[in-house]
């Protein structure tokens, strides 16, 4: 049963810069269902963080949402004012940032930062402000235990710099999960971490996702992470989704030349003799793009037919691709 929690339709987010209008997200449509984990893959500048920054209402001047709709549990988010957004953020939708050290406030203890969220959003807290604070502190300890921080009670009043990178990431997850959100957006949660710690953090998220029947959006550039943890995956390139589908389907049977190129450019431990093939060239500038395939300049299969507006098209069950050559044997 697929109940959509988040529905984005034709989202277009632009930044008005000195050099011209940058369309960082250009016509993104997607759905996140209840309890599922959606992976968003793309290189830097592909628009993956801006897409979900738009969902969180975090796009600030010179950026703005030019078009499109973002619905969360049926409610339109585009155009909400600051107050309405604050009620939602942290409570129903939570986001963890890539770099835990810059996302946490260095001047406040960890307990301060977890309790702040609870006091703002948790309706289960009752009584005077003092008693609420006390209950929140208890919950903060629970959260820290949940994310696997040893000696949680004694470490609660430490500052972020006193924790290691993996522990900081856990603290950010603890803050994000403290109000049991319906949707967690995890932006590169493990990029800054070592592999053994990465495994711990990802398994923690998967575990909590199961327990709370939470939906998760996992933004990453690591296809291995997607393969192991995500139900569905979307590949972004230059502000657009170029391929989307069930993870296994997309990875085993990629249709877009960019997805194929990505998969061919990573060495695989299981087959080190397999030669890697880089994608030549680099990502186009996002200013003044013509209505044509954006990958054309780097694509080996490009023809004149690619110089038109290209829409997503169906390619099998729940598998879509933005390429006119998809499905054809070349």
């Amino acid at each position, binding site marked *: 049963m697929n109940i959509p929690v988040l529905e984005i339709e034709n989202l277009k987010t632009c930044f008005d810069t000195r050099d011209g209008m940058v369309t960082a997200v250009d016509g993104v449509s997607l759905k996140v269902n209840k309890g599922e984990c959606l992976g968003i893959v793309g290189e830097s500048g592909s628009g993956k963080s801006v897409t979900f920054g738009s969902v969180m209402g975090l796009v600030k001047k010179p950026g703005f949402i030019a078009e499109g709709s973002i619905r969360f549990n049926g409610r339109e988010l585009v155009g909400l004012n600051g107050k309405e957004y604050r009620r939602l953020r942290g409570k129903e939708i939570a986001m963890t940032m890539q770099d835990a050290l810059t996302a946490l406030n260095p001047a406040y203890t960890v307990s301060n930062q977890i309790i702040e969220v609870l006091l703002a959003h948790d309706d289960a807290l009752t009584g005077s402000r003092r008693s609420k604070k006390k209950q929140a502190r208890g919950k903060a300890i629970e959260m820290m235990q949940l994310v696997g921080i040893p000696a949680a009670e004694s470490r609660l009043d430490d500052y972020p710099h006193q924790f290691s990178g993996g522990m900081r990431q856990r603290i950010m997850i603890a803050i994000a999960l403290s109000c049991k959100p319906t949707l967690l957006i995890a932006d590169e949660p493990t990029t800054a971490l070592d592999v053994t710690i990465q495994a*711990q953090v990802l398994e923690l998220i998967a575990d909590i996702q199961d327990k709370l029947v939470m939906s998760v959006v996992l933004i990453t550039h690591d296809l*291995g992470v997607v*393969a192991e943890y995500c139900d569905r995956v979307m590949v972004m390139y230059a502000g657009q989704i170029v391929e989307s589908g069930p993870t296994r389907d997309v990875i085993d049977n990629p249709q877009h030349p960019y997805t194929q190129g990505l998969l061919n450019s990573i060495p695989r431990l299981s087959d080190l003799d397999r030669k890697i093939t880089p994608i030549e060239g*680099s990502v186009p500038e996002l200013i003044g793009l013509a209505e044509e395939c954006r990958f054309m300049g780097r694509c080996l299969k490009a023809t004149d037919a690619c110089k038109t507006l290209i829409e997503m098209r169906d390619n099998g069950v729940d598998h879509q691709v933005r390429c006119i050559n998809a499905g054809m044997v070349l």
Partner: protein
Amino acid sequence: MTDMLKVRGLVKHYDTRRGIWGKLTGNQGALVQAVSGVDITIQQGKTLGLIGESGCGKSTLGRAILRLHEPTSGTIEFDGVDIINLDAEAMKAMRQKMQIIFQDPYASLNPRKTVRQIIGQPLKIHGKVSDAEVDGRVQEMMERVGLKVGQMNRYPHQFSGGQRQRIGIARALILNPKFVVCDEPVSALDVSIQAQIIELLAELKRDLGLTYLFISHDISVIGYVSERIAVMYLGKIVEEGDTHTILNSPMHPYTQALLSSVPQVDRTGVTKDRIRLTGDLPSPVDPPRGCRFHTRCQYASEICKTDEPLYQTVSGTHSVACHLVGNSG
């Protein structure tokens, strides 16, 4: 096959203990034991992959080998010469043969210099050639690494990450070195660009007969580029062997855990048999007694807490430092 590099018992400590100031402020500092007795050998024309988590001392090791950071003790034999006792002038001459490529292509290039100046500087420092010759060599090198010669008067910020890394590579190779330390050369790059740089480094190695020490935390990359792999944990090498042996039959529990933690595209769902390491890397200021890995090792027994395991050869060229492996196990 001759040995290009032979390192024995290399130790690098950073002493941040302070004198009177430390006493007054209460900030005593500490003795950071970044590298604690490392033996490695790299044969000419081969790549040794050095893998380990952040803070294990792998970058320090790379720099200590070039004497960019003066080693605390140990010996380094490079191309048949003991370089540890060379004076500054002799060492400078030796550095023409040993170069380094840095991780961050943003921080390792001087933003105020043009690409021509950056790539040509090593030639000028070593005072070998006239300005015209420098330009000629710079152009040759730029073409070699896939940069457009027409861009030689541009500044680093006008290039993308991948192109900057090419500039760093050109700078390292312009003196025709024999040995290059590649310190996480692709970690800061996007996946598709990573592959371009890996292929470029492989091609240069083939064509110029280079020897690499390739430092990375990415096991897939290390596995792809190296003939041999050394695994480092908290300042020590815990296992070393042929790439095939290390990846297919690792013996040290740390290597096993590291390998099983790597997410792979051809696996679905969280693997049930994944070895889960708990906790974080202990501090190199106060490394655990005995085996340094015992605090996170699922097989640790009493002896691991007290005695340091010997680094012993298990078969052929495969060496492991673990009580569970070899005679006792």
